[in-house]
């Protein structure tokens, strides 16, 4: 019984982590129809910039988080202007440029900081004990921020002018331009937001899992799973698929040891994708 409760709690926590990391990627995929493979690297850079602010300059954790997010958002605008805007619609070149961005970011971090893993100081100390369960405040903070951001993004996309303009661009680029929507400006804003979300995830995750130049790689796979299962056109869907993935990752290692549980999870994902390739909450898109 206690094991079941712990597993459920673990599942919720893992889900919130994956959803938080997936928010930026899903946002860009839904709004701009761009698969930002560099998302993992940007997530990683956000964590490292936060680390530099905290350890190097002694700022408070939260101040460092905000600063890192702003810097990465600016970087996102730069990326959009020079790396993604020229290649809209050309999947091959976007894959190439993303690999180049990943390599450059990872190499820069390795050169400046080095290859060993290091951790950010936690955002919240202490452990909450409720009955048989004990959860660190750190994870509760992550969970809360993830949930809040998801709600904020959903509100932004559906209720604000900018969000609606982004939806218009996603539906029909040329039609949106004919309506007078400034495609470049809205794309820049979208990219800034997407990268900012990645940075926030990186900072929070950097405190929980160690920082490493390659932390983005494994997270990118989980993010891809969540977003592909949810499908294009549904930001709220990643909530459900994130829950599914988090629960799988929490529950299966209890039944099977390490590597086979990974294999089973991927097998389940592949079967789900074969059943419904366009995702459970989305529609089919061409990119």
């Amino acid at each position: 019984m206690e094991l079941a409760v712990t597993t459920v709690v673990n599942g919720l926590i893992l889900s919130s982590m994956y959803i938080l990391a997936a928010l930026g990627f899903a946002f860009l995929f839904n709004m701009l129809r761009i698969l930002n493979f560099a998302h993992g690297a940007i997530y990683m850079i956000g964590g490292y910039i936060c680390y530099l602010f905290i350890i190097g300059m002694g700022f408070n954790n939260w101040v460092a988080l905000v600063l890192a997010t702003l810097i990465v958002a600016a970087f996102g605008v730069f990326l959009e202007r020079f790396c993604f805007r020229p290649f809209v619609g050309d999947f091959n070149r976007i894959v190439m440029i993303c690999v180049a961005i990943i390599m450059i970011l990872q190499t820069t971090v390795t050169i400046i900081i080095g290859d060993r893993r290091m951790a950010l100081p936690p955002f919240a100390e202490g452990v909450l004990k409720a009955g048989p369960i004990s959860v660190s405040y750190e994870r509760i903070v992550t969970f809360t921020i993830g949930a809040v951001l998801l709600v904020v993004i959903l509100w932004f996309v559906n209720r604000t002018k900018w969000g609606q303009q982004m939806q218009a661009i996603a539906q029909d680029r040329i039609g949106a331009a004919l309506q007078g929507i400034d495609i470049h400006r809205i794309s820049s804003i979208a990219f800034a937001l997407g990268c900012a979300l990645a940075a926030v995830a990186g900072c929070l995750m950097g405190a929980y899992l160690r920082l490493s130049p390659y932390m983005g790689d494994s997270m990118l796979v989980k993010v891809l799973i969540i977003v592909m299962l949810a499908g294009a056109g549904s930001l709220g869907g990643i909530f459900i698929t994130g829950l599914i993935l988090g629960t799988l990752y929490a529950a299966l290692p209890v039944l099977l040891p390490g590597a086979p549980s990974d294999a089973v999870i991927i097998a389940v994902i592949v079967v789900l994708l074969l059943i419904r390739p366009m995702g459970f909450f989305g529609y089919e898109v061409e990119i």
Partner: protein
Amino acid sequence: MSTTNLQPSEPERSQRKWIKPAVLGGLVVILALLPVFISSPYMLHILILTFTYTIAAVSLRTIVTSGQFPLAHAAFMGIGAYLAGMASRSLNWSPWLTIPSAALVTMGIGMLTGYPFARLRALYYAMGSLFFGIGVVYIIQAGGAWTGGYSGLYGIQPMFGGSKMAYYYFFLGLALVSIIALYRFEFSRIGTNLKAIAQSHLVASSVGINEGWYRILAVGVGCFFAGLAGAGYAHYNMVLSPTSFNFMATLWLVMYVLIGGIGSIAGPIIGTFILILIPEYFRDLKIYSPFISAAILLIVVYLMPQGLVSLPQTVRSWYLKRRKGKGIAHAS
């Protein structure tokens, strides 16, 4: 394509027809004679790896000509490698038996798994194959005593008593045979059908081309050569690790193909050689060396979208534009 009045006249063209085979023949001769001049075993090792990845890259491009973009190619190399390794270690088969058998079984696995994936299109096929490739690595890691799990598979038989020069000629020969086979495949009737499916699957179906069957066939052929490359690698390296066939390895194979150019067989060959040999030349930069590869990627992405294979065309159209003035329209 350039405009008609810029084409050389007929007698000139047939005179120039012998240039291409001569250049290719010359390159093969140079590669065959290289070991005589290079004594460093490390250089030979790099070239052997280059030949192996060339086979995988060219077979990846073959699948791409049918309109599908698989992101699991390194995983199929891994399947071929582990099959050959396990057969060599546990069943004590000779390498000359394990390599073809592993390639055939990999082709079978590719076709079997290609069957459910054949109905996925474009992005969804790419994502599905991506997750499939990751799953293969997990399965290998979960293999326990059979595959050596995380720590890898040891004890695979070497060939030719471990002589690097013998390996070099073996892999050079293997690469040449594979490239010729895939070239003939591409320009055969089957290959033409594949290109038809890639251009418009609806029109192709209306002409009677069974799209599903041809897509599975393309994946099968591609996986055969991927398994071949992997099995050869297993007998060369004598040790296998699951992480050599993970998503990053697939991504690199994709880079070799895209950088070189999808348009022709020469594309992946050029891409593989450039992306392996140039960073090797700059190896002394140590941790800075990924910047070189990134620089190559950036140059090709921004300046040569069709890949390096289009370099002569790009240079020629730039030169003609400068000579004739900017008034001529080029469709290249």
